[in-house]
C-alpha cells in the first residue's frame, strides 16, 4: 500500500476491524434492539452477557446439587429415613455414591434405593447416631461387622 502523506496513513482503517466487530456481532445476534447492531452498545451487552454466562456456570452446579438433594430427600423420607441420616449412614457404610447417582437411583431404581435406605438406617442404629432412635429396626444384617455384633450381644 502506498501512503502519499502520513495523514492518510493515520486515516486508514485497520483491516482487522471488520472481523473484530463481526466476532462481537455474532455473539449479539440474538439480542433485542440496538444492542444487536450498534457496535458500541453491542460490545457492552456482550461483555455483560459473558459475565452472566460465567456466573451461571457456578449457579448451574449449585442448582443441580439442590435439585438432586431434594430428590434424594424425597426418596429417603418415603422410607422413613431423614436425608441427613441417610447420607451419614451411607458414608459410614463406605458407600461412596454422589448425589446425582443417588437421585437417579431414587427415580429409576426404587428397589435399589430402598435397600440403600435400609443399609443406612441399619448403620445409623448400629452406631447409635443422634436421631436414629426414630428409625425402624432393620430386618436384615448387612456386612460382617453387624453380624458379629449381633452374635456377641
Amino acid at each position, binding site marked *: 500500500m502506498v501512503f502519499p502523506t502520513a495523514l492518510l496513513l493515520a486515516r486508514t482503517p485497520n483491516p482487522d476491524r471488520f472481523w473484530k466487530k463481526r466476532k462481537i456481532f455474532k455473539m449479539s445476534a440474538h439480542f433485542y434492539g440496538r444492542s444487536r447492531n450498534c457496535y458500541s452498545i453491542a460490545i457492552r451487552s456482550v461483555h455483560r452477557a459473558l459475565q452472566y454466562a460465567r456466573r451461571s456456570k457456578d449457579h448451574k452446579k449449585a442448582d443441580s446439587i439442590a435439585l438432586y438433594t431434594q430428590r434424594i430427600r*424425597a426418596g429417603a423420607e418415603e422410607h422413613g429415613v431423614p436425608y441427613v441420616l441417610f447420607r451419614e449412614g451411607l458414608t459410614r457404610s463406605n458407600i461412596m455414591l454422589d448425589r446425582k447417582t443417588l437421585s437417579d437411583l431414587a427415580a429409576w431404581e426404587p428397589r435399589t434405593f430402598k435397600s440403600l435406605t435400609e443399609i443406612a438406617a441399619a448403620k445409623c442404629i448400629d452406631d447409635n447416631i443422634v436421631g436414629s432412635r426414630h428409625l425402624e429396626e432393620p430386618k436384615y444384617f448387612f456386612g460382617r461387622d453387624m453380624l458379629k455384633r449381633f452374635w456377641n450381644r
Partner: protein
Amino acid sequence: MSAYERVKQWNTFARIWHIYDAKWQNPFDSAKVISKHIQGLHKPIYHPLNNCGDHVIVFNSRHIALPGYEWKKRAYFHHTGYPGGASWTLAWQLHEINPTLVMQKAVKWELPRGLSKFGLMARLHIFPDEEIPEELLKNVTSQLRQLRPVPRTLDSYSDKEIEEFPKVMDYPNDYILK
C-alpha cells in the same frame, strides 16, 4: 412399552389426593408438610418445571391449635389502599369470621413466591368441619400423618377408664377430700 411399565408410568405421574386431619394441629407446622405435598417435593421425580404436585384436603380446620399466645397476639394485616385504610385482625377474630383462613394463609406463606402460587393453592381444599363433599372424598387415596397426637379431654374418659387408671397410692380411710 409393556402393560406393566405403562401402569407404572401412570402411577408415577398420577395426581394423588391426600387427606389431612387438622384437629389439634399447629397450622404453621402442618403448612410445611402440606405445601411440600402440593408442590410435589415428596417425589423423587420432582423438578420445578414438572407439574407433579398432589391435591390435599384439609378438614377440621376449625379445631386447629395455635401455639402459645398466638390466638391473641398474631395479627393479620390488611390495607385498603386509602389513607387510614390499615387494619389489623387478630387470629381469633379472623378465625371467627372464617375458620379456614388461618390454615389457608399459613399454607400460602409456605409456598414459593410468584405466580405459581395461584395454581398450587387451587390444589388445596380446606373444610372447617368433618363434612367433605362426596366427589372430593372419593378421590382420596392417601392420608397424611398428624404431626402430634390429639390430646384427650377429661370428659372423653368414661368412668370405667378413670377407675382402671393406674394409681400411685390409695387415700387412707381417715383422709378427708376437700
